[in-house]
């Protein structure tokens, strides 16, 4: 990345992702063609335009070509030559996919979907040039189209009469004469007869005109000369006369009358008019030429990009600081340290600052959940078209911040839930109308913080879960017994049972064999929980509760012999004390005990991890922590329960090696290491045996 051009490319890719998102947002905002306002279309145009400019600069030809067609269409809409229609909107939506593909092509070397691109491009071109009106599709700008080239000659006589006010646009006539000199040898005559009397002279005006004869060894065309004066073609009069006969040089021919009046005769094609004429025929001035000042303040996303590794190392260091801090607080013993009071003040300040710092650093990893939510309006729009349903998406709390890792892991479960709502939850138009509901169904995505957790709700106002069908299915699949007497809520929760799927027909959308049990497992892997609430004909709401970050864990400290372990609070159902006789044995081994009417296995951590412990004493103490994962419970025998605290999770893989049954480690206040138990892993291990 040391090559500056590479760096600019990286910036351009960020920028283009933003531009494409902006186009999508704007398109989604309108969706209905009749409500498109000038400002929105201007915004979309501007985004496409910057994409084109940037891609051209970085030599991304296919992207430039495609955005050019898009931009031409948008420009026509903007200038009122084309009316925005549903067709155009749909085509612009398809264009987004092409743009993303093209950007990915240049950024990651993805293959270009040629067929898709060609289809959308043809569609755009078709929209651009309805059979009745002319071509205008061609990417040629008027300048490059065929202006008849002037006779090529190596000798020219040039007359140059700038407008008096030419300096007012920052132009200096001498600059152009200098540039002519680059084409060949010049000799310059300045005519000063138009300079007025001193009293009438405006020092900011130019009253001179110049005759320049140019001799070049190379061939110089009239086009080359026009190019020199391109910037000021409307601010000066020119005559370009080719000189082929040496005698002509001696007696120069037509001269612009002084003072400046348009030339009376035009020996060669008029220069200044040519381009204007070419520009006019199909490009009437837009009615609203100046871009209106945007009233909505642009959402200023001031940000810097930082390598995640750097942030993680900072977080790690901070974890150490927290530990050091708690180590110090142990020395808060008044009798040993007479100056304790001052030390204690300092310590409590240190503690407060450490906590603030910790929160601040943690927030660096946080991203607004919008990163995840923003894809849904588009997805739902596409799905609802496919299913011919009318569905609106409502997003609440999109600025709620969540840990980056959580956002990444959350994507798939949310996609699944939203698809389910669209496919199964929401009814089609006629059914909704028959039920007296509004024709358009709503999927609501909502996020908010609640005491150290983030809550995400995916709600629809559809038919609700079909209790009868779920029950029948559960019995058929053997998830429950036929005579089971379950509450409605318990039946609803059956949808999370492994292998359960009610979709009668496997559609393209949901029911691909990946059920709600996978969603639940994914959420649990993030240390979260998912619940469902459903009322017939009113709708279904899924509530996901997640920890704010994966780097800090709410844990229960416990001891097995001399070793300290931590069990995530989320996995613990309860801690109970058993009598030795409550524990069932097979031979010498403890195997199970009766808990809430069922026998659940018992697990000996000491044996699992090879701790030195007096087993007899452990059983006599009878302290058991009941943990749960994936609906399966197990009891863990421990020597003592300590406090419950938030710990900074450190990776075992990174610092040592992966150990079966452990999900990480942390360092405690006294500097000792405590291992964090992976409850899911040990339960499946127990089940296996």
């Amino acid at each position, binding site marked *: 990345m040391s090559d500056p051009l590479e760096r600019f490319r990286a*910036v351009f890719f960020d920028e283009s992702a933003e531009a494409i998102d902006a186009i999508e947002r704007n398109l989604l905002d309108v969706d209905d063609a009749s409500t498109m306002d000038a400002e929105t279309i201007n915004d979309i145009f501007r985004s496409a335009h910057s994409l084109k400019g940037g891609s051209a600069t*970085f030599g991304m030809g296919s992207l430039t070509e495609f955005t050019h067609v898009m931009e031409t269409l948008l420009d026509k809409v903007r200038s009122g030559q084309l009316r925005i229609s549903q067709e155009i909107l749909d085509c612009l939506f398809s264009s987004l996919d092409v743009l993303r593909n093209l950007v990915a092509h240049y950024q990651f070397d993805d293959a270009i979907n040629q067929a898709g691109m060609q289809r959308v491009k043809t569609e755009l071109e078709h929209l651009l040039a309805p059979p009745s009106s002319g071509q205008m599709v061609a990417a040629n700008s008027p300048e490059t189209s065929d202006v008849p080239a002037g006779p090529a000659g190596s000798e020219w006589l040039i007359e140059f009469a700038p407008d008096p006010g030419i300096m*007012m646009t920052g132009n200096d006539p001498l600059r152009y004469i200098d540039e002519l000199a680059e084409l060949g040898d010049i000799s310059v005559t300045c005519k000063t007869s138009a300079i007025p009397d001193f009293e009438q002279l405006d020092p900011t005006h130019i009253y001179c005109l110049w005759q320049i004869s140019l001799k070049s060894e190379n061939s110089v065309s009239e086009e080359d000369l026009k190019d020199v004066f391109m910037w000021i073609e409307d601010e000066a009069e020119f005559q370009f006369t080719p000189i082929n006969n040496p005698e002509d040089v001696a007696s120069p021919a037509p001269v612009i009358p002084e003072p400046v009046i348009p030339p009376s005769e035009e020996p060669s094609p008029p220069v200044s008019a040519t381009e204007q004429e070419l520009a006019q025929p199909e490009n009437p001035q837009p009615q609203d030429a100046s871009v209106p000042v945007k009233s909505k303040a642009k959402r200023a996303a001031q940000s810097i990009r930082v390598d995640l590794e750097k942030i993680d190392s900072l977080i790690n260091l901070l974890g150490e600081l927290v530990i050091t801090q708690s180590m110090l607080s142990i020395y808060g013993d008044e009798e040993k340290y007479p100056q304790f009071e001052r030390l204690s003040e300092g310590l409590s300040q240190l503690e407060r600052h450490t906590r603030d710092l910790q929160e601040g650093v943690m927030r660096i990893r946080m991203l607004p959940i919008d990163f995840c939510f923003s894809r849904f309006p588009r997805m739902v729009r596409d799905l609802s078209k496919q299913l011919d349903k009318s569905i609106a998406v409502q997003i609440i709390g999109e600025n709620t911040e969540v840990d980056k890792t959580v956002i990444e892991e959350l994507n798939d479960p949310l996609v699944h839930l939203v698809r389910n709502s669209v496919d199964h939850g929401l009814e089609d138009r006629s059914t909704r109308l028959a039920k007296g509901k509004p024709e358009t169904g709503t999927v609501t995505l909502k996020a908010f913080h609640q005491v150290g957790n983030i809550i995400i709700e995916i709600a629809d106002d559809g038919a609700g879960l079909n209790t009868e069908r779920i029950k029948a299915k559960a019995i058929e699949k053997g998830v429950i017994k036929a005579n089971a007497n379950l509450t409605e809520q318990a039946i609803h929760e059956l949808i999370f049972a492994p292998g359960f799927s009610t979709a009668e027909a496997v559609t393209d959308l949901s029911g691909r064999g990946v059920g709600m049990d996978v969603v639940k497992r994914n959420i649990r892997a993030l240390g979260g929980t998912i619940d469902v609430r459903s009322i017939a004909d009113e709708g279904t709401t899924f509530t996901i509760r997640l920890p704010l970050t994966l780097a800090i864990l709410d844990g229960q400290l416990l001891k097995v012999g001399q070793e300290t372990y931590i069990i995530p609070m989320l996995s613990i159902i309860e801690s109970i004390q058993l009598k030795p006789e409550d524990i069932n044995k097979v031979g010498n081994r403890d195997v199970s005990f009766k808990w809430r009417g069922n026998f659940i296995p018992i697990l000996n951590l000491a044996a699992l991890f090879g701790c030195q412990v007096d087993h007899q004493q452990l059983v006599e103490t009878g302290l058991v922590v009941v943990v749960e994962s994936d609906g399966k419970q197990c009891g863990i025998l421990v020597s003592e329960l300590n406090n419950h605290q938030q710990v900074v999770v450190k990776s075992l893989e990174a610092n040592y090696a992966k150990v079966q049954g452990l999900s990480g480690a942390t360092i405690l206040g006294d500097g000792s290491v405590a291992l964090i138990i992976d409850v899911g892993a040990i339960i499946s291990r127990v089940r296996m045996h």
Partner: protein
Amino acid sequence: MKKILTVDDSASMRAMVAFTLKAQGFDVTEAVNGQEGLDKAMGDNFDLVISDVNMPIMDGIQFISALRKADNYRFTPILMLTTESGLEKKQEGKAAGATGWIVKPFDPQKLVAVVNKVLK
């Protein structure tokens, strides 16, 4: 050292222009839209201004015409950065007081050549 103000809403474009010109020893200031450009121009005295046309909040045309009205920018060269298809924008820009234009995409060497020519 000659001072140049570059106004563009695209960060990559701005970075390209600034990098290219800084490498030639110019003192380059950046602004993200016409409004910011105007604010920065008023607080300083630039020898050259290079502005994009399509920008949010205040576009290049409005910016150029406002800047040209300021006393210390009456004769300052102001260049537009524009795409080849923007012919009507060029005319609008000229009418607003632009000195000339640079066509996007530009070759960094060409940019330097134009800037040197204008500042000579």
